[in-house]
C-alpha cells in the first residue's frame, strides 16, 4: 500500500476532483485536434472533411475540460458537434460529391490564405517566445464545481446588480434574434 495514495484520495475528495495523467491527456487531445484539423483541409471528400471537423471539435471540448471549463466544453459539444455539424452534413449530403470532388479549384485566393496562415503562425510563435510575459506564471486552479455559476454571475450579475457582460450578452442575443427573423422572412414567399 502506497501511503501517499490514501492521503491523495482524501485530498481529492476535499478538492472534489483529482486530475489524472494531465500531460498525457493534453498531448493526446492536442495531437488529435491538429491531426484531424489537417484532415479537414486535405480530404477531397466533403463528408470526410466534416467528420474530421467533428473530431477536432470534440478534441477541443476535451481541452476545455482540462482547463476546468466544463460548461464551455458541454456547450461546445451540444452546439457545434451536435447541432451545427449535423446541419453541415445534412447540406453536404445533398451535394453531388462525386462531381464536386473531381472539379478543379477555380478561385485564386490561395496566396491570401497562405499569407493569413503565416500571420497566424507568426502570432503563435511570438506568443510562445514571449510566453513568460504574456501568461500568468502559474496555472490558475478554478474550482471545477463552480465554473457554471461563475459564468452565470458574469453574464447575468448578482442579485440586483448588472453583470460584467450582461449588456454584450443581451446585444448578442438580439443579433441572433434578428438573424432568425431574417432567415424566416427570406425563406417565406409571402408573410
Amino acid at each position: 500500500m502506497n501511503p501517499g495514495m490514501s492521503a491523495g484520495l482524501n485530498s481529492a475528495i476535499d478538492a472534489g476532483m483529482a486530475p489524472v495523467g494531465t500531460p498525457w491527456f493534453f498531448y493526446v487531445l492536442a495531437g488529435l485536434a491538429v491531426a484531424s484539423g489537417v484532415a479537414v483541409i486535405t480530404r477531397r471528400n466533403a463528408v470526410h472533411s466534416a467528420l474530421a471537423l467533428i473530431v477536432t471539435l470534440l478534441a477541443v471540448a476535451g481541452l476545455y475540460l482540462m482547463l476546468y471549463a466544463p460548461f464551455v466544453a458541454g456547450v461546445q459539444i451540444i452546439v457545434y458537434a451536435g447541432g451545427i455539424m449535423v446541419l453541415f452534413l445534412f447540406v453536404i449530403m445533398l451535394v453531388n460529391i462525386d462531381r464536386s470532388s473531381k472539379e478543379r479549384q477555380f478561385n485564386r485566393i490561395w496566396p491570401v490564405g497562405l499569407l493569413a496562415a503565416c500571420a497566424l503562425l507568426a502570432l503563435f510563435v511570438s506568443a510562445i517566445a514571449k510566453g513568460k510575459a504574456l501568461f500568468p506564471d502559474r496555472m490558475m486552479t478554478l474550482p471545477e464545481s463552480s465554473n457554471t455559476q461563475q459564468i452565470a454571475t458574469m453574464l447575468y450579475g448578482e442579485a440586483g446588480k448588472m453583470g460584467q457582460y450582461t449588456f454584450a450578452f443581451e446585444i448578442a442575443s438580439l443579433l441572433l434574434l434578428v438573424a432568425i427573423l431574417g432567415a424566416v422572412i427570406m425563406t417565406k414567399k409571402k408573410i
Partner: protein
Amino acid sequence: MPNFIMSYLDPKVTVTPGSAGNQFWALMYVLIIFAGVSVAVICMNWIERKALAHFQVRLGPMRVGPHGLLQPIADAVKLMIKEDIIPAEADQFVFWIAPMIGLLAAFTVYTVIPFGPSEAVSDMNIGILFMLGVSSLGVLGIVVSGWASNSHYPLIGALRSSAQMVSYEVAMGLAVVSAILMTSLNASGTGTLSMIGIVQAQQQQGVWFIFKFFPLGFIAFVIFAIAMVAETNRAPFDLAEAESELTAGYHTEYSGLRWSLFMLAEYAAMIAVSSIAVTLWLGGWMRPFPNLLHAPAWDFIFSLFPGLTFGALAAITFIEAARMPTQSFFKIQRIGLAVFAALLGFIALLLLVIAVAGRSADMSVAARFREGIDYVYWFVLKVAGFMYLFIWYRATWPRYRFDQLMKIGWKVMLPISLGVLVVTAIVGVIFS
C-alpha cells in the same frame, strides 16, 4: 493496493467513484453498467417481441427455449455468424465507422446517469448538458451511415432522421431548462446542472418536479416524453426507418453484426433518455414518499421491495413451468423454465437477506449495499416503466406523416415548451 480498493467502501465516502478519484471503482462501475445495459437490451428485445405479439393477439416467439426466452440469444448468434456485406459502391471507411459512432454516443452518456447518490460513475458539474450533448451526437451515426451506404433509401432515411432530431432537440432542450429552473428554488437561489444535484434538489423541495407548480412541471414532462420518442427514432416517429416506405431506412444496407450494433445503440439510447426523464421529473433514485414516510420501519419495508419483486417473478415462472403441457416433448423446456425460476428465486433470497442484514443504520458494508440496491431498484423500476411505454406506443399508434411530424415539432411543441419555461420562471419568482 487493496487498501486503495477498500477505501472507497468506507461508509464515510458518500460520493461517486469519479468524484472520489478512485479509478478502480470507476472502472468497476463502468463494467457493471455496460454489462447491465447489455442484459437490459437483451431482455427488452424479448419483452418487446412478446408484448407486441400479445397486443396483436399472437403468441410471439415460442420455439427457442420455454416461451421463447432464449430467442434473443439465438438472434444474437445468428447475427454474429451472418455474412457481413459492405456494398461495393459504399464509402468503406465511413460505412465501417458509422455504427460505432452511434454506439459510442449511446454508451458514453451512462457516465453521468445517477442510479443513486453515489451509484454513478461520475458526478459532473455539467451532467445534464453533457447528457444532452453526447446523446445528440448519436444522430451523426445515423446520418453518416445513410450517406455511406450510397443508396437511395438509406439516404432519405438519414435526411429525415437529421431533420427530425434537430427539430425535436429544441423543444426537448427548453423542457429540460424549465426543470433545471426549478432546482434553483432554494435559499441560495442557485440551481444545478449535475444529475445527482437535480435529484437532491427534488428531495430538498419535497416534491418530484412532475408535480411542481402543477400543471407546469407536468406539461414540461409530457413535452420531453414526446420529444424523447422522436429523438430515439421510435414509433410513432420512426420515419427514418419506415419499412413501408424506405425498406429499413438508414440501415437498409447493413447486415449481421453491424446491424445489431445499430439495434444495441437504439435500445441503449432509449434507456438513456428514459433515465434523463426519470432524473429530471420523477425523482431519480428516490422511493415513493421519502420525506413523508422516513421512519426506519418504512425504510425496512421499502427495502424489501427488490427481493419481493424477484420473488414474484420467480413465482410466476414456477407457475408457468407447472402449466407446461405434459408431453415428453416439453420435458426439457419445463426443466429449463424451472431452473430459471430457481435462479430468480435465489436472487430474490439474496436481496431479502441483504435487506434484513442491512436494516440497522449502523453504516456497515451490508447497510451500504442495502441502500445501493434500494436506489438502483427504484431508478430501474421507473426506467422500466418508460421502456414499456415505448413498446406500448409502437403497438398503439400509426406512424406520422413527415409534414405532420415537422408541424408538431415546430408549431405545437416549441411554443408550448417556450411558454412553460416563461411561466415557470414567473411563478418561481413570485412563490419563492
